[in-house]
């Protein structure tokens, strides 16, 4: 593998070329004026007046900042702000409900999992409002300040947190948001990946451990050029870990000489947040299994050790992985042998430089995964069942997942040998559940959990 990737120098050259090329493609002379003139002529002819009032951008921003600044004295205001950010309609109507397609090898999969089910503040308040707790933990590194504002957690350790990340120099070079990380252009910011990640602490041990899975959602409506408002939906590595304490980490990869392989990492962690209360869950069961479900998510109790597989090809076990190759965006590759299976494979360059990873199994099969991260190769999990369905008293159904679990949920985690836990993409009322059906786990027939 080429030792000095020079990716960002290369990328900046491409950026400059594109900018120069498109700079000469301006709207033709007179086009803008013609459009403005045409609109004026149409005024009063077809244009309808509206009873609604546009909210000026400045007003929204001021509201957000004021709510944050008085958060320590006005719990109700903070709680409403939290509920709006975490569960309200974010106004992203273009990606709310639609079908998208994954192009993975030659297969096209329908993936409705990016659906976001907005929940009104009133419903959210009723279901989880009383358990919203203020954290107000702030950590800084250089010009970056991260504040974890409010948190709500359920009995299973699933949680939601609102986070503000600010930098007076702005975030113009923000590249991406994804599972637990935000990526910047290091040639501008000096920082590549900022990892805003939830963490859990084992009981009686001071070391803070990362939460297994979290997903950050950028609130475009509240965010500004210098302040990003994020909502994190997280699932724990372990129920006990998360219930004892949760902490958040801000980490960065600093590129000083343009060489990604010489990048330095830094990280800062908040003090552990110890939940004072939890959103309650209800229990449903079969003859020999049980499930715990709250408005935020669900926990299936084991044994599940034979049901956890890498995403995409559920028939393969990660212990059969022989090696994996990271394909970098500049065309370079790095192959890592895996004598003990996939766990623990590390790649050298940070996430931003990785386009996709090819995993090779011992039977010659290959699995391609996009953007799983390069610091730690950890395939996402999939629970090898056909479908999980919740039936409610009013006759409605919520199909929680089908075989592509990662498409449906905000985050998921497998608790070693003791079960599967994941969060919903909406709030539900557990009291209205009649039954939960799991189709075909481990080659068995349907499991029906009832009260």
């Amino acid at each position, binding site marked *: 593998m080429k030792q000095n990737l020079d990716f960002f120098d290369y990328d900046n050259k491409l950026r400059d070329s594109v900018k120069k090329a498109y700079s000469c493609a301006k709207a033709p002379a007179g086009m803008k004026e013609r459009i403005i003139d045409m609109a004026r002529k149409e005024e009063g002819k077809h244009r309808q007046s509206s009873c*609604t009032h546009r909210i000026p951008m400045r007003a929204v921003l001021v509201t957000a900042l004021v709510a944050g600044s008085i958060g320590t004295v006005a719990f109700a205001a903070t709680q409403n702000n939290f509920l709006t950010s975490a569960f309200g309609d974010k106004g992203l109507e273009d990606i709310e409900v639609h079908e998208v397609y994954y192009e993975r090898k030659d297969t096209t999969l329908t993936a409705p999992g990016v659906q976001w089910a907005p929940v009104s503040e009133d419903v959210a308040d009723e279901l989880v409002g009383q358990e919203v707790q203020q954290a107000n933990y702030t950590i800084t590194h250089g010009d970056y300040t991260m504040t974890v504002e409010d948190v709500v957690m359920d009995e299973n350790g699933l949680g939601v947190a609102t986070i503000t990340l600010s930098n007076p120099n702005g975030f113009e070079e923000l590249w991406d948001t994804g599972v637990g990380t935000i990526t910047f252009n290091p040639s501008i910011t000096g920082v590549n990946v900022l990892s805003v990640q939830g963490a859990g602490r084992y009981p009686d041990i001071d070391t803070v451990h990362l939460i297994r899975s979290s997903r950050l959602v950028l609130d475009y409506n509240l965010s500004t050029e210098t302040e990003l408002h994020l909502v994190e939906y997280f699932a724990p590595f372990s129920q006990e870990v998360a219930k004892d304490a949760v902490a958040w980490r801000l980490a960065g990869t600093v590129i000083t000489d343009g060489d990604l392989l010489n990048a330095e990492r830094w990280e800062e962690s908040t003090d552990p947040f110890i939940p004072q209360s939890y959103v309650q869950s209800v229990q449903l069961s079969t003859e020999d299994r049980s499930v715990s479900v709250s408005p935020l998510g669900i926990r299936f109790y084991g044994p599940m050790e034979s049901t956890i597989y890498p995403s995409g090809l559920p028939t393969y076990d990660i212990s059969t992985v022989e090696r994996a190759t990271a394909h970098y965006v500049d065309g370079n590759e790095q192959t890592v042998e895996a004598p003990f299976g996939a766990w623990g494979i590390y790649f050298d360059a940070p996430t931003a430089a990785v386009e996709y990873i090819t995993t090779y199994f011992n039977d010659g099969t290959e699995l391609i995964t996009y953007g799983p991260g390069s610091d730690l190769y950890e395939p996402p999990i999939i629970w090898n069942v056909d479908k999980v369905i919740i039936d409610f008293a009013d006759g409605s159904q919520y199909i929680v997942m089908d075989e592509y679990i990662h498409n449906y949920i905000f985050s998921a985690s497998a608790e070693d040998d003791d079960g599967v836990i994941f969060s919903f993409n909406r709030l539900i009322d557990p009291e209205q559940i009649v039954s939960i059906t799991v189709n075909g786990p481990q080659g068995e027939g349907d499991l029906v959990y009832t009260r």
Partner: protein
Amino acid sequence: MLSDSEFTELVQTYGDMVFRVALGYMRNQADAEDVAQSVFLSLYHTDKEFESSFHIKHWLVRATYNECTSLYRALRRSPENIDDYIESLAQPQQEEAGLLGEILKLPKKYAAVLYLYYYEGYSTEELAGLLKVPAATVRTRLSRGRKKLSDILEKGDRL
């Protein structure tokens, strides 16, 4: 609803962007102008509430793609030769215009991502929302677009 002064400002601010997005899709100046006109008149008439300038820009890009798709289907014709438009651009920018022509000859999905990512500064996640494809697909298109652009630049000894 937008006031006349707000609308005028938005046309002045985003007119070039809408034209470029439309040009990349339609590959014909006249069609791109038609799309831009239709998009801005839709903006003028909309009752939609915009919370920020980012929201408006997002809406304009999305509306431009929708309009392009509709017009392209309605026209039912072969892609236009972009060379005519490139030749019409001013001579002092000959090199840049040549590069633009080559970018616009790339498959649309790559040219669109290259423009929106590098010129307009959208993140891959934002582009996923705009283009209605997964972020992983955007990253793949961006990577392949980079490779094709690199080939173009290397061929012209510009990289």
